[in-house]
C-alpha cells in the first residue's frame, strides 16, 4: 500500500497542507478530513504544498473541486505550490492553472493570498 501523509501548519494567516506521498482513491479520505477540519474552523485560506507529493489521481483532484466553491464563497481560496513537473503535468492537462493559482513556491502563493486581502 502506497503511503500518504498530511501535515498542517500555519503561516501569516494561511493554512498550509503539506502533502506527502501518493494521493489516490484509497488515501483521499485523509485529505478530505483535513479540509473538513479547516472549514469547520472557518479557515478558508488554504495552501496546498505539493513538494513531496509524488502522484495525484482523478479522485485526489476531485477533493479540491469539491471544496473550492465553498471556500471561495467565504472569500478564501485553495492555492497550490511547489509542484513537481510530473504532478504539474497532470494538473496542466486538466487546465487547472486556468482556475487555480499554482505558484512556484510557498512565498509566491502566500503573497497572492495577501494581495487578495488588499
Amino acid at each position, binding site marked *: 500500500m502506497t503511503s500518504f501523509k498530511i501535515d498542517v501548519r500555519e503561516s501569516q494567516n494561511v493554512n498550509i497542507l503539506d502533502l506527502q506521498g501518493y494521493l489516490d*482513491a484509497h488515501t483521499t479520505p485523509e485529505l478530505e478530513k483535513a479540509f473538513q477540519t479547516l472549514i469547520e474552523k472557518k479557515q478558508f485560506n488554504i495552501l496546498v504544498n505539493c513538494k513531496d507529493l509524488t502522484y495525484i489521481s*482523478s*479522485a485526489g*483532484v*476531485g*477533493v479540491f*473541486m*469539491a471544496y473550492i*466553491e465553498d471556500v471561495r464563497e467565504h472569500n478564501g481560496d485553495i492555492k497550490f505550490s511547489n509542484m513537481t513537473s*510530473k504532478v504539474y503535468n*497532470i494538473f496542466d*492537462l*486538466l*487546465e487547472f492553472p*486556468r*482556475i487555480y493559482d499554482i505558484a512556484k513556491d510557498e512565498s509566491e502563493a502566500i503573497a497572492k493570498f495577501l494581495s487578495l486581502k488588499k
Partner: protein
Amino acid sequence: MKGFRTKLKKMLLMGVSMVLLLAGFLLTFIQKSFEGESTWLGLLREIDIVAAFTLFYFFLESLWKREQNPAKKLGFALVVALVVGVASALISFAPSSGFDIKNNGLIPLGFDSVFWANVYGIVMGMTNLLVLMLIRDIIFSKRRKGSRRNFLIFLGLALLNAMWTLTMRPLDSSIITSIVTVLTIAAMLLNSFRLSWIVYLSKREKLFTLVYGFLLFGIFIGFDVITSGTMPIAKAVLFYSPALKSFISSVALFATIYFGMTFISTLFHLPTAEAFDRKISEVSSLHNLSRLVTQVFDFNELVDSVTTMTLDVCEARSAWLEIIRVNAPSAAAKLHAGKHMSGEETIETVALKNISREDVEAIVTADGQSLRELVLDAKKSVVIDEVRKDRRTVHLHGLKNVFNSMVIVPLVSHERVIGILYATKDIEFGFDQDDVEVISAFADQATIAIENSRLIEKSLERERLMKEMLLAQDMQRKLLPQVLPSLKELEIEALSTPAFEVGGDYYDFTMLDEHHLGVLVGDVSGKGVSAAFYMAEMKGIFQSLARIYRSPKEFLSQAHATLAATIDKRSFISLIYAVVDLRTGQTDIARAGHCPLLYVSGTKGIYVKPQGLALGMGSKEFFRETIGEERLHLRTGDVLVLYTDGVTEAHPKDQEEFGFERLLKVVEANGTKSAVGIRDAIIEAIALHMNREAPEDDLTLVVLRWNK
C-alpha cells in the same frame, strides 16, 4: 403390524404368567389335599411359580416406561408400597387357620390358609419385583462405571439364595445360605452408597424425595418385620414358595437400606439445594447464550436477548447494554462520547430492560469520572456494593428511585472494549464474587455473539457490493463499441482494458453523416458504479449531440453544459474528440482536459494539444471561452493515436512511468505498420516496460491510419 406384534407379546406374557400362577394355585391346593408331602409335587410347584414370576417380570419390562424423574419414581413406589402395606395389614385381621411347623416344613391347617398363602405370595412377589425394578431405574439414571456390575452382583446373590432354598426344607437353615445372605447384604450396601442422582434434583424435588424416602424406609421396615421368622405372613409366603420368600426378603431388605440411605443423603444435601439450583440455572443461561451465538445474527435481536438473559443469569432488577461503534455516528451518540472515545468512536445504548433511557443517562454520566470511564480504564468488571454510600456514585446518592448495588462489565474483544454491560439490584451487596464471575463469562459470550453479528453484516455488505460491481462491469462493457467502424479510407483499431472492477475509460465512434466520422476517447474520474453512470450519460450525449454540433469544440461546449446539470462537484470527464472528413482527410480536434492527441506523419510525431478544461470543471461560459480547436490535414499513411492516461502513466512498482516520450517513439518506429500492427506494438512496448506486471489503471487506445 409391529404395534400389534408387541401387543400380542405383552398379552401372551401376561396370559401365560397368569395361567402359571393359577396352576400354582391349584397345585398348592392339591398339595394340601395330599395330606402329606411330596417332594416332586413341591418341586413342580416351585418351578411353576418361578416361571410365572419370571414371565411376569418380562411382562412388566414390556410395559415399562423409562420416566426420567427419580422423585416421581419414588412417589410411585411409595403409592404401591402403601397400598400393599395397608391391604396386607387389613387382610391380616381376617381369620386364618395358619400353618403348623413339622420337620422344618409347613403344613397348612386349612384351605383358607392355602388361599391366603397364594394371595400374599403373589401380591408380595409382584410388589417387590416392581420396587426392585424402580430401584434399578433410579440407580441406572445416573450410571457410573460400576453401577451395573454392582446391581447384578446383588441380583445374582439374591437369586442364588432363592434357588438354594430348593435344596432345603422350608425352615432349614444352612451355612451356605447364611454366608450368601451376608454377601447379599454387603451387595445391598454396595449399591446404596452411590446416590449422586440426589444431587441433581431441584430443591423442590429434593424435599419430596426426603419425605418419600423416609416413608418408604418406614414401610419397608414393616415389610421386613412381617416377612421375617415365624410371623403369620412370613409362614404363608414361605409355604407358597420358599424361593420366592427368600427373594422377597432380599429385595425388601435392599429397599429398606436403599430408601434409608436416600433419606439420609437427601437430608445432607438440603442445605446446599438452593445454591445448587442457582448454579444449574446459571449454567443453563450460559448454555442458552452459547446457542444464541450461533443462531441469532440480527444485531438488534441479539442485544435484546443479551440484556434479557443478564436479568436471568444474576437475578438482576434491571440491565442495559452500551455498544461502542467506530464510524457509526448519530448525533445523540456523538454527544455521549467521553474522553476515552477517539474522534471516530461513538457509544450508544442499544438495549435496556426495566429501566428508562433518561435514568441510564443520569446514572452513567456524571461530573468528573463517569461510571463508564471506570470500566474503560481498568478493562475489568467493577462492582459497586453500596451505591448510596460509594464515592464513585456520589451523583446518585440523592436520586429517589435508585437501586443499591450494581455491576459494570466491559465486553472486550481483541484488547478493545466494544461495549459495556450494566446490571443493578435493589439490595446492597447484591452481586457476590460468584455473580461477577458468571456475568463476566456471560459478557464474554455476548462479545463473541456481537462480533459475529457484526462480521456477518460486514460480509453481507461486501457481498452486496461485489454483486453491484459485477453488474456495473457488465453494463459498462456494453457501453463500449461492440464493433469497430469499417471504412476503406481510415483503418481503425482499438483496445480498452479496465484495471479492476469498474473503470472510467470510454471510447466511441459515430458517423455524423456519410462523410464525417467522429472519434471520442474519454476518462471519467473516479471508479466504480458512479463512473459507469457518467459514462452512460456521456455516450447518450455523444450519440445524440455530435450530429447536431458538428464542430468538435462546439460539441464539447454543449456536452459540458449538459453535464453540468448532473455531474457532482468532485467528478469530471476528460475527453479528446476528433472529427475526420472522409473525403479530404481534414481532421478537426478539440480537447477537454485530456491527454494530447499523438499525430505521426512519416517518421515524425507530434502531440496536438488544443486548450480546454475538462467537463465538470468551470462554468459553462468559462468553458466556452477557453476551449480551443486545431485542424490537421491527413496524408496517406498518417497515424492518429487517441489514448487515456493509463497508457502514459503505466509503470512497474516504484519505477518510472511509460511516459509521452516512449509512446511517441514507439509509434514513430512502427509508423509504417497497419493500425493493428501499431496498436500491438504500443501494447507490447507497455507490457515490456511493465516487466509483464499487470497495469494498475485502465488502459485505452484508439489507433487511426489514413489510407486514402
